[in-house]
């Protein structure tokens, strides 16, 4: 009996963490079938390629836990990338130093990025507009404004150090010769450049820093508890003394903040600002959150799950490229994984959602 229970317990905990196994299996599969898939460079590629989805999905996790959804984030990325790039270009042209214009561009984008969230939050919380509608309206508004600001042309000619920031790594290691922090060792020959090992992209570092902070907020603070409470039952949360309206506004602002951070990361990575920057990533982000175990009815979900969900998509994308498999299979595969993810949850609801 006891042995049986133990086995059952292990089985349960396995199912509860199925996405980890799925992720591991995916990596193993591609490592075996692919070419150099399991290499430091390629794994960092997966992280870099997932930047936008990771950031959007983290913000979206908060919203989805409250039982809402934020469709505007896709184009808020574009809006913030355009604003960020435009401010940088204009300030540098006005004669400001590179550091100053870059930092003001980033700050301007991050502040402006809160605005769509504020409006969404007000509409959802104070005027009881369904989140789907409020944020879809904002989707059109953000896209339109971004195109108008950049005049339908990607913003170019950014300060030169944007590139070195966005493409830089935390550490560089030339085996046996040099180990530097933040900047490449100087005076390398072409052969040495080839052997240079770059470790942890700056962009990935910032991304995970932001995600880490908000993972802590969600898991360990009162704010996080209230978020879950609202998603579980709004009226109960109100009775428990949570200022639901205020809280919802903050949640939508968090989502919007992550979208604009994704926009800033976009500028750093690609040295341009484009209006449709994150649009096609919007539904990928929702998919990542759901694969990560959140329910669209609210009340469940974790940042860790979301991160794994996003990485499952990223690893799959890169893996299929590595195997040179045509693109349509990716859409089909992601669709199937998504449905599978929810089915696993459905068939073991009390197993999966039981509190530890």
């Amino acid at each position: 009996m006891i042995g049986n229970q133990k086995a059952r317990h292990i089985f349960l905990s396995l199912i509860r963490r199925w996405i980890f196994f799925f992720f591991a299996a995916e990596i193993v599969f591609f490592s075996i079938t692919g070419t150099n898939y399991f290499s430091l460079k390629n794994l960092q590629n997966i992280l870099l390629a997932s930047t936008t989805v990771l950031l959007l999905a983290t913000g979206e996790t908060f919203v989805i836990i409250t039982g809402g959804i934020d469709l505007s984030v896709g184009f808020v990325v574009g809006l913030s990338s355009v604003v960020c790039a435009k401010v940088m270009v204009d300030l540098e042209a006005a004669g400001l130093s590179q550091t100053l214009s870059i930092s003001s561009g980033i700050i301007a984008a991050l502040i402006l990025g809160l605005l769509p969230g504020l409006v969404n939050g007000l509409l959802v919380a104070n005027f009881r507009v369904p989140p789907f509608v409020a944020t879809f309206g904002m989707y059109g508004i953000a896209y339109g404004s971004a195109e108008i600001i950049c005049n339908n042309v990607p913003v170019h000619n950014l300060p030169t150090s944007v590139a070195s920031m966005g493409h830089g790594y935390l550490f560089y290691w030339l085996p046996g010769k040099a180990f530097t922090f933040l900047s490449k060792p100087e005076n390398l020959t072409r052969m040495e450049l080839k052997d240079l090992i770059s470790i942890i992209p700056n962009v990935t570092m910032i991304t995970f820093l932001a995600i880490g902070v908000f993972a802590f907020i969600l898991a360990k603070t009162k704010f996080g508890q209230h978020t879950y409470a609202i998603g579980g039952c709004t009226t109960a949360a109100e009775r428990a003394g949570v200022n639901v309206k205020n809280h919802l506004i903050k949640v939508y602002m968090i989502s919007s903040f992550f979208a604009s951070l994704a926009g800033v990361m976009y500028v750093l990575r690609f040295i341009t600002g484009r209006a449709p920057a994150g649009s096609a990533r919007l539904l990928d982000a929702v998919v990542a959150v759901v694969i990560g175990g959140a329910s669209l009815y609210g009340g469940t979900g974790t940042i860790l799950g979301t991160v794994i969900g996003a990485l499952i998509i990223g690893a799959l994308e890169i893996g299929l490229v590595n195997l040179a498999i045509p693109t349509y299979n990716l859409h089909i595969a992601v669709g199937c994984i998504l449905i599978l993810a929810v089915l696993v949850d459905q068939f073991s609801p009390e197993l999966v959602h039981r509190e530890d």
Partner: protein
Amino acid sequence: MNAPDPSISLNLNPSRQSKVFGFVGRNWALLFLLFMMIIFSFLGKNFFGLKNFTIIVLGVTSLLLLASGETFVIISGGIDLSIGFIMGFVCVSSAIIMRDLHAAGYSQTVSIMAGSFIGLLLGLIPGLINGVLIAKLRVPPFIATLGMWGIANGLAWRLCEGFPIAFLPPRVRELGMAYIAYFSTKKGFSLFQKPVLTERSDILSLVKIIPLPVLLITIILLIFAFILSRTKFGQHTYSIGGSVDASIRAGINVPMHLIKVYVISSFFASCAGVLLVFKLDMGVHTQYTSSYELFAIAAVVIGGASLMGGQGSILGTVIGVLLIGTLNNGLMMMGLPIFYRYIAVGCILIIAVLIDQFFPELVHRE
């Protein structure tokens, strides 16, 4: 319980003032549509006229069908994100069938009929899967249909590989471009037969009355509006959207009904797909930039449906679609660049729901 009454009729309210408010609140989309048409007629060049209204309606034919199917789903309290790509999938596959049969030497009629029918049938499968996932396996509608969104997109892309599917039987084109009646000052009135004209001014002054696709859509919409508002099936759809538990207690087979609802939505999408073949004379699948599904949902909401379920009507949805179409066409006629139009549509969507919120008891009182 919300009766499936399209929200046109006036209710007897105690005071005249609240009667007016109620009317405005309930029919604001229709009033706004009329208001816009008046404004555009004054400000835009060549806006007002049968020709331009035909252009507006022809421009939104796909959206009309998609949004009407979506209405059923939204009334039942669900959502269907897969419709846009199901449309693309059906459009591409039925075009391929028509092309290949025609190339293999079958007559035009046979290849067109086979292509349309197989296309329509194929389009039912995703709806069936959606329905089973949602009703039997309790997958949330958003996710089941989002999964189908990816799968349908992948399949459609695999079939056409980014190329338009052309070289269809010539009659596809003739049917898609046909009007019910023509009237020209030189050649008089003719049914279905387009008069042969050579002068540009004659061609421009030719009056073309009701395109064939629009007639077809009208018939389909009338049938389903009838089903929704006058039959037991419609009543059950509203009641499921109102409360699933109450519906079960009332003896409705909810899972079965939901499956049917998603099949209907998928059927509308495949109708839109087949119609698109006729309209464009080729099979085309657009990936991400089209966002058909989101605009369809927006139209349904503008038309007065609630995403919580239980409310909405086909008539309202039609008004919602026409509102989006007219806004786009009218603002373009006025010379407003496209991206201002995006902002305008976004704002109107939000205003739509705000009005719903500000007149709640007026709007939704029966």
